């Protein structure tokens, strides 16, 4: 593949101008979106706490919050659009990967494989997600309103240090527990011969997904650590030439 020179410099400048003079409409929409998402995840958190306090067990907790979770997690796809059109200054790919991994967990693991819905690992990652998302969306909201309380900034750039690994552990354990059920039912799989001349084995696909956490997770983690050093400690980081 002939890698051509990147000629995005002109477009980048235009984009920067666009971002700097962010339209009032974009700010209004983003503020509304972030407030709505904060509220949504707060509702989830309270529903989970209420269930546990009332029933004393985590069995059946997932089922009770499943619809709300699916709704708010799926809406997060809109954040990829935000990056693509430039009203949020983050890489489309990073956001895309994060949102897709969440959507994958919710729709293709916990929603599809009913037998693992009462596992502890599910509760683990649900708690982590809820905490992380509430912090993240309230951070964005306050940022947009230019009144960021220090404790939210502190939480966003410090809590991930334990939340990320815990969340990854919950997700990986859940996928691992789901494997035998996937193999038994042969769900989402396609075998030869067929007229498209393709085959897909969901079981091996899940194993590859689990393995992909090994290169991907450290990258996201170190990215957040770098962000933390920059935002919280005011360090100037000189990016190494690749």
């Amino acid at each position: 593949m002939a890698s051509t020179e990147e000629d995005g410099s002109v477009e980048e400048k235009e984009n920067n101008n666009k971002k700097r003079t962010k339209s009032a409409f974009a700010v209004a929409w983003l503020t509304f979106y972030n407030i709505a998402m904060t509220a949504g995840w707060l509702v989830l958190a309270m529903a989970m706490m209420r269930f546990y306090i009332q029933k004393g067990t985590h069995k059946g907790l997932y089922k009770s919050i499943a619809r709300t979770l699916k709704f708010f997690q799926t809406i997060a796809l809109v954040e990829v659009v935000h990056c693509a059109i430039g009203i949020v200054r983050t890489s489309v790919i990073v956001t895309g990967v994060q949102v897709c991994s969440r959507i994958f967990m919710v729709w293709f693991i916990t929603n599809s494989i009913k037998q693992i819905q009462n596992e502890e690992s599910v509760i683990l990652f649900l708690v982590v997600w809820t905490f992380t998302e509430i912090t993240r969306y309230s951070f964005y909201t306050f940022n947009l309103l230019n009144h960021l309380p220090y404790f939210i900034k502190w939480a966003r750039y410090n809590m991930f240090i334990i939340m990320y690994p815990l969340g990854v552990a919950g997700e990986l354990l859940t996928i691992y527990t789901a494997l035998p059920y996937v193999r038994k039912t042969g769900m989402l799989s396609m075998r030869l011969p067929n007229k498209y001349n393709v085959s897909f084995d969901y079981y091996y696909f899940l194993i590859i997904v689990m393995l992909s956490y090994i290169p991907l997770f450290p990258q996201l983690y170190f990215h957040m650590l770098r962000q933390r050093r920059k935002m919280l400690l005011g360090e100037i980081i000189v990016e190494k030439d690749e």
Partner: protein
Amino acid sequence: MDTLALEAKANGQEKKSSAPRPRPKPPKKAKRIVYFEVEIVDAKTKEKLLLLDKVEPTSTILDIKALFHKSNPQWYPARQSLRLDPKGKGLKDEDILQTLPVGTTASFYFSDLGAQIAWGTVFLSECYGPLLIYLMFYFRLPFIYAPKYDFSSSKHWVVHLACMCHSFHYVKRILETLFIHRISHGTMPLRNIFKNCSYYWCFAAWMAYYINHPLYTPPYYGQQQVKTALIIFLFCQVGNFSINITLRNLKCPGSKVKKIPHPTKNPFTWIFALVSCPNYTYELGSWMGFTVMTQCLPVAFFTIVGFVLMTVWARGKHRNYRKEFRDYPTLRSPILPFIL
């Protein structure tokens, strides 16, 4: 030495050999060459890396890179990027020092492009891989399919045809790389070879596995489908070849002058009237033909991904053409006539 002095000198020499005639004496220019001072500064850390004095004003950027390489042997010229502005574009190797907008003390910002590899090496590895990998699956070498199928041959003639087409495509590419292509920059970053080879090799293996599988299902519409697809494939292969030849004939060896490609007598090049990068258009056509011929979803995936990549490159090239030539034909689209 500027050209005026050179011409005067040549004139003087010519006239000496003919009959002596009163002629105006060539202006006696004091032979004082203004030497340049060149400073090389790290673009990121702004640390001064090298100071060169007594640099010939007619030296090129490549000469300066060679001098820099002498004092810093780990940075061979292909890996150096010298710029006038730390955030600007890299200067070309052929640029001459005295034509640059610098005073007699020039400051260049240096950045390391990383280990480089010749483009030819990358292109050849990209092409030999799929060629050999496909053949491994075609001949059903052991450990790919169930042992009872080892070294067996498919009973569908479309599978044999597909192997011929696929191999032909990559052999053609290899020959073009060796004899036809002229690329302006000699090297690319080393990591490209891993990136590019993974892409081509993995996709080739994925496609070849299904096409040569013992349980392969031939195309739904049979002979008709295969024959039509073959015609499309061959047409586009010839087209792609014609475009590559035309592009090669545009550039004289060693010259870095860019020219606008135009339709020639060859009907396959008439598409230049509507498209800036018809080599990509024909490539897309070839793979679409191959997809229809094999009716294999992985091939369709490969075609789609290739199409996305080629569109990105075509749009970049199209933008460069428009920037470089004021009179660039406005009817042309980057890759698909009127659409994209």
